[in-house]
């Protein structure tokens, strides 16, 4: 079993909050964990992390270190440390933090600002600066905006150790998760969804979901008006909702479309799927907040073109210069 020399890890307890009042009213928080994760030839243990639960608008800083250069305890990059949020470090512990940074082979100052907390993702801005004990004049710094899903992890920096040892290097990770007020966890949401293609609307879908869990939808295919090859368009995807403390609902909807020529029977559907003749668009997504019962229409950024018969061969030809038909989904959510 490997032992990581965790110099200090400070668990942050937020006593005061810098977030705006309206952000706190949502009851939804984005949890960000910054981690120095060692990489060994035989595997990768979790490493050392520090974390904080952010309301939108809040920001704080962390310190991560890898390797030690003090004469008594020099070590490889797999020996790491994590401290933070730095604003919560007590004055008594401040000298320890200073010493940790001074004796580290590499140190990262990571600033995190929470931008928004959605139903399934968090938007945050991460700025970091890496300093090296051996080359103090060399500073590497980056600023990036990340949209991370609940449970997603992203490496923002990676250092390799010299050859010959068991330690291969260290990765600096940003991990995201969502946190909500306990009173919201048992909420149920009832959905009404409509799909429209120009003047065409198909039977609407009524669904139910539990707080934070996705539910799938798949609409019947819609005929593209005026299409010579009986072109049909179908929409399918998932919708996720999180009820907020103020009663409004954070909604995330992911949708993909697939189009094909008119399908006569289900056998043909199977044949069509097996031969993968259908063509689908890449998924689109929308995050938004709605009042219970509010109908919100979301339009696809592509317009559906009817294909007319070509005058020479009679083959369907898409008319790209025509405006096309709007493809949209209307969403209505209620708390049950």
């Amino acid at each position: 079993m490997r032992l990581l020399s965790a110099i200090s890890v400070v668990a942050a307890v937020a006593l005061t909050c810098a977030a705006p009042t309206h952000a706190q009213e949502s009851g939804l928080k984005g949890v960000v964990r910054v981690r120095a994760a060692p990489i060994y030839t035989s595997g990768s243990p979790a490493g050392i992390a520090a974390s904080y639960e952010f309301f939108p608008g809040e920001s704080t800083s962390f310190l991560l270190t890898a390797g030690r250069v003090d004469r008594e305890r020099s070590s490889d990059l797999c020996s790491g440390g994590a401290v933070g949020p730095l604003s919560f470090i007590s004055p008594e512990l401040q000298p320890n933090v200073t010493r940790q940074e001074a004796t580290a082979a590499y140190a990262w100052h990571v600033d995190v600002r929470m931008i928004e907390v959605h139903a399934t993702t968090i938007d945050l801005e991460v700025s970091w600066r890496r300093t090296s004990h051996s080359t103090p004049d060399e500073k590497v710094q980056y600023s990036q905006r990340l949209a991370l899903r609940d449970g997603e992890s992203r490496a923002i920096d990676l250092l390799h150790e010299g050859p010959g040892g068991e330690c291969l290097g260290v990765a600096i990770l940003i991990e995201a998760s969502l946190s909500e007020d306990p009173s919201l966890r048992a909420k149920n949401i009832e959905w009404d969804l409509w799909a429209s293609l120009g003047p065409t609307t198909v039977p609407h879908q009524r669904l139910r979901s539990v707080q934070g869990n996705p539910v799938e939808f798949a609409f019947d295919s819609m005929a593209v008006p005026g299409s010579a090859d009986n072109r049909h368009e179908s929409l399918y995807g998932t919708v996720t909702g999180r009820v907020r403390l103020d009663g409004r609902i954070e909604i995330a909807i992911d949708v993909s479309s697939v189009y094909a020529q008119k399908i006569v029977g289900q056998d043909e559907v199977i044949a069509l799927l097996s031969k993968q003749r259908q063509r689908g668009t890449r998924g689109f997504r929308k995050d938004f907040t709605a009042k219970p019962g509010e109908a919100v229409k979301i339009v696809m950024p592509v317009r559906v073109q009817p294909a007319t018969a070509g005058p020479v061969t009679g083959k369907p030809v898409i008319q790209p210069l025509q405006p096309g038909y709007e493809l949209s989904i209307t969403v209505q959510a209620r708390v049950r």
Partner: protein
Amino acid sequence: MDQHLETLSAMLDGDVVDVEALEAALADVEARRGLVEFVRLRQVARDESAAPAPVFAARAGRSVERRRALARLRVPLPLAAAAVLLALLGGSLIDIKWLAFDRDQASREQVQPPPQPSRVLQFDAPPPDSRTGGR
């Protein structure tokens, strides 16, 4: 114009096209714009995933299974004829107007149009990370 577009479409499909027709098509400004649109659409389509959603495939599979189950029943002809006769007799006792009304109402409910939206938004493509910095 349509002929020019069709010629350009056929060329992109790899079909043999008349060279003079191709020259004429390329001389047409509108057709050239159409060619650019064709290429753009094809590039979008090339990046698309052709895999159907699992939920869609599952629904299709269930529907086929139901049809096969019905086919396996194989009701004898005399029994089927008797069932049709009984249905006709029974149907004559039911108010035709009531049936028609019910069907119309069900149809209206099935294709109920969406409510008037209070807002209209647009779907987003997954945003790329905006990253800046360096040494």
